[in-house]
């Protein structure tokens, strides 16, 4: 089980198939060990702003990058994004939005709210795997968040 202090990538994804495929793509780049998965928006908010009941939450440990699906149960991705970017403690964490299609009007909203990049989840698995792992690598290896 991945420990929170080791978390480098937070994946917020409700679809278990997509989550599995994403994890597989990251695993191919040897990034999977540092991934933590939230299955809906509420859980993601709990992870960051919870009252302490969240089993895995530990103050002071923040992921280096967040992969955020926009369409989520309970609290949708845009709301999560808004909350993250409002909070001084979390607003510097890079957020990569995962979306099903480039046609989605939510992409524009996500950028306005401060998303750093986006990935269209292609049907083609190889393309998806490449995109996910590229972005993950980019933000983990090339981008140094302010300390």
């Amino acid at each position, binding site marked *: 089980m991945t420990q929170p202090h080791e978390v480098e990538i937070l994946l917020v994804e409700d*679809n278990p*198939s997509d989550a599995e495929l994403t994890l597989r793509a990251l695993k191919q780049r040897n990034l999977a060990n540092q991934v933590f998965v939230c299955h809906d928006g509420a859980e993601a908010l709990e992870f960051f702003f919870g009252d302490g009941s969240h089993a895995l939450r530990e103050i002071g440990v923040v992921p280096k990058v967040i992969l955020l699906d926009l369409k989520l149960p309970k609290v949708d991705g845009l709301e999560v994004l808004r909350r993250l970017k409002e909070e001084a403690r979390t607003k510097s964490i890079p957020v990569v939005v995962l979306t099903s299609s480039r046609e989605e009007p939510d992409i524009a909203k996500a950028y306005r709210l401060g998303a750093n990049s986006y990935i269209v989840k292609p*049907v*083609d*698995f190889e393309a*998806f795997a490449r995109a996910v792992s590229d972005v993950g690598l980019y933000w983990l290896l090339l981008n140094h968040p302010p300390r």
Partner: protein
Amino acid sequence: MSGLPWNWSIERKLPLFFSALLLAVVLVMLGAAYQQVRTAALTFASERVKRSTKEWVNASQRSTAQQRTQVATLVADPGLRDFVASGGRRGRDWALAAMRHVAPDNTPNVAMELWDTGGHRLLLRGDSALASDPAPLPASDSGVVSPYRVRRDTLLLSDMQAVVRRGPEGEVIGRVVVVRRLNVSALARQTLTGIAGGDMALLIGNVDGDPWTDLEKVIPAPPPEARVVHDSAIAVSYVRGDAKIGAAARIPGTPIMFISELSRRQVFAQSRTYLRRMSLIAAVIVVIGALGAWSVSRRITDPLNHLTTAAAAIAAGDLGQRVNVSGTDELGRLGHSFNAMAGEVQRARGDLEGQVVERTRALRETNAELEAFSYSVSHDLRAPLRAIHGFARILLEDHGTGLEPEAKRVLGVIDDNTRRMGQLIDDLLSFSRLGRKEFETARVDMADLVRTVAAEVRLRAGDRPLDIAIGPLPPALGDREMLRQAITNLLDNAAKFTRQRAPGRIEVGHRADGAETVYYVKDNGAGFDPRYTSKLFGVFQRLHRAEEFEGTGVGLAIVQRIVLRHGGRVWAEGQPDAGATFFFTLRGASDA
């Protein structure tokens, strides 16, 4: 308010027409009345001069007859006969006494003479200034009256002569002459014309001509037409000094005649006064009529003007406009009808606006549903597809070594079809998005756009020989992003269908067609059967099998949709294995 009379406003035409009509009627009636008054005045004047003349003639006839009787009595007097027979030597006192019966001594204006047949005057009694000249004997012994004669320019004299015989039926031995002077003076004229009414002139004179008198002085004879003598006095018109109406009559048995005359000017003076007075009244009537007509026309045109103003305001969009309505006449009813109509229009417009709002709302809802549907398609349809594809790949990658070749082939089919399904969804979404996208018109540099797109197409073609020739292209008016999509689709299409050519040739050019520009993309690719040209631009319409050329059949539909949204046309020409040319038109953008 200018131009031809029938283009004038009613407010101007109606009073003008009415006034003209009134004026014409008044003038005709005035003329008729004046004529009647003149005729009456003329008739009255004629009657007056005739009656006057008759009365004067009658009076003169009576006095002449009386004088004749006196003279006849005188010449039958034995003493006078004896005096004449004696040649004036005896009986002078007898003769004088007899003559005194005719006219007393010192009677003014009368002189009496006795003459013998030898032309000697035997006796002169009375005013010697009136004494006559020797004259031939009259033909008979009845009193013969002579024409007037003038002596010393002022004396108008007339004789009555009678023969003296020796005894009854005896020989003529002499004659008696009674000379009478007509007493003419201003006083006499005033007195006599005063009796006749003051305005009438009385003239006496000889039937045959001069001398004549107006009772004040000697005057020239009136013109012959004034002296025409009939059995009774007849009024005639003539000119003596000025135009006159007069009636003449002879004193029977004498060469003397009377004329009573009136000046026409005086006769008609009253008619003219009447005319002047009536004209004044007529003018007042016309002015009052014109004012009345103007007032009436204002009462008609004012409401009409209000109606016109209100109608114009309503036409301009102020549907709340109404007119003030008073009265129940035609104009009042028109105003009521107008207000009712305006109310109806306003209500109908309100309904219409309500309907538009309602429809727009419904349309927005439908659009929102469509958006939601598109979102759902793009998200929810792709997620399972991704899972199918992804896990099929995992199966192949992780467990491929344990699978039979047939199982691997089936997995490959799954792989292919999920890919195609994903492409289909993407294309369909971009096609439907075109209908909702905001249209931004700008000047688009087509040459630059085509060069950019061609570079991308060449990149995608990889090592394959592909020759894209771009001719000069004029700029167009349109949405740059949409046009980019259309050209991308056309060039991708051309690149795809020239895949089996070495090299593949694509030519992009244009030709001017009026205000439009016809652009074309020509290739030397697989072409198409012209019988199916109509299906070329339909959604999901494909003329080639998937094994030959991949594709979803959406690309050309998108091109057509984009060109149609630009107000242009799109068509294609081609033959199987002889290449295809795609044409589209756009409005040109002037370089100014």
